[in-house]
């Protein structure tokens, strides 16, 4: 079992094709697979559909793939903070499928768990429910949402062992586990790969069964909204 690759380009070799569906982890710019995104920009793969809560910001994260027009469609819950995204969407160059955030997360989780669809109250009576099957359970109305199975998942974790067991750090976990689970193939980038035996099996957040390829690299980890308080307020 060889999961560790030398670079993002090597780890993605043979996995990319035009028109594919990619699930990406991250929330805002927190916990995004920035190295794998850069490698996809370099590979030039086109007509991508990307399932990701956000679309990065102008010039960083998935925003880079928008700048190069490699993305045909986004499946997201929130796209503020990205002028190029807004421009492409309003001009009709980019398709956008709005998903409530929890529905998107559950669609990924379900897809990875062999659950093709599930009912949720989220979005009932809104545009999100249009065209979807409605069903009443115990006097409440729910809509049917489909699980997502992606051609490729790209995720970011803090640490991994060489078998692909992943540990995340703080709120950088976010969409990474469900995104990883829903991919036919999952490539993870981490800050540190340690030999097997170095991670406590009780502290693994995502078992290596979900992770097929792995790279270690340096991350910029850009902060989107730097908010602080002054020390004297303590």
């Amino acid at each position, binding site marked *: 079992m060889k999961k560790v690759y030398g670079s993002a380009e090597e780890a993605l070799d043979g996995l990319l094709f035009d028109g594919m569906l990619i699930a990406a982890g991250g*929330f*805002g*710019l*927190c*916990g995004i697979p920035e190295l794998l995104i850069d490698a996809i920009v370099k590979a030039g793969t086109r007509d991508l559909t990307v399932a990701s*809560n956000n679309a990065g910001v102008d010039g960083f994260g998935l925003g880079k793939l928008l700048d190069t027009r490699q993305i045909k469609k986004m499946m*997201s*819950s*929130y*796209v*503020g*903070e990205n002028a190029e995204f*807004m421009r492409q*969407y*309003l001009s009709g160059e980019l398709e*956008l499928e*709005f998903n*409530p*955030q*929890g*529905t*998107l*997360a*559950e669609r*990924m*989780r379900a897809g990875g768990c062999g659950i093709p669809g599930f009912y*949720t*109250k*989220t*979005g*009932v*009576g*809104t*545009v*999100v429910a249009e065209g979807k099957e409605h069903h009443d359970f115990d006097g409440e109305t729910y809509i049917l949402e489909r699980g997502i199975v992606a051609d490729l998942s790209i995720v970011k974790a*803090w640490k991994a062992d060489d078998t692909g067991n992943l540990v*995340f*750090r*703080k*709120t*950088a*976990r*976010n*969409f*990474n*586990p*469900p995104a990883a689970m829903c991919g036919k193939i999952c490539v993870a980038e981490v800050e540190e790969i340690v030999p097997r035996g170095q991670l406590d099996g009780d502290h693994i*957040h995502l078992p290596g069964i979900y992770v097929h390829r792995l790279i270690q690299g340096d991350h910029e*980890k*850009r*902060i*989107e*909204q*730097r*908010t*602080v*308080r*002054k*020390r004297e307020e*303590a």
Partner: protein
Amino acid sequence: MPWDRNQMAERAAQELEDGMYVNLGIGIPTLVANYVGDKDITLQSENGMLGMGPFPFEGDEDPDLINAGKQTITELNRTAYFDSAQSFGMIRGGKIAAAILGAMEVAENGDLANWMIPGKLVKGMGGAMDLVAGVGRVIVVMDHTNKHGESKVLKQCTLPLTGTGVVDRIITNLGVLDVVPGGLKIVECAPGVTEDDLRAATEATIV
């Protein structure tokens, strides 16, 4: 004098009870955290955290530790982290006692619109649709009127909805209103605001 942003947040904080797990939205709702006082409140951030702390001191910002508004924050000694699917599992599953959210429009039947203005502003619903569908109590905090002086408390929402019949209580700069059968009921007026002032600024039916 109508309430200012901080006074609205202070009033909203009175809605919270000891032991509650609560989700605060972006904007004025975020300020509610400054007014919980001695109450034992656990704040949920839907990007995957229970037990959200205040903003970090300068120099202590951690790019791996942000709230749902993408702002840098801190953890507490009670903090727990989890992924987005579990986060919305607890929201959808009714485990969160209350959400305090901003709004563009609220209607007298409890309909809420707060995620887009067609043709103008496309931001997305984020977690708002899940929150209003799942949490125990939905409290809206917003200005009573828009910048043109038009009521945001309406008979019917005109913008795309976030949820139908989901709002329990509305706190504005002018006062507090509850969604009840047949319309809205005035609970409280801001200091110096009369019930007549409140009615005049409200398009919705007041019962």
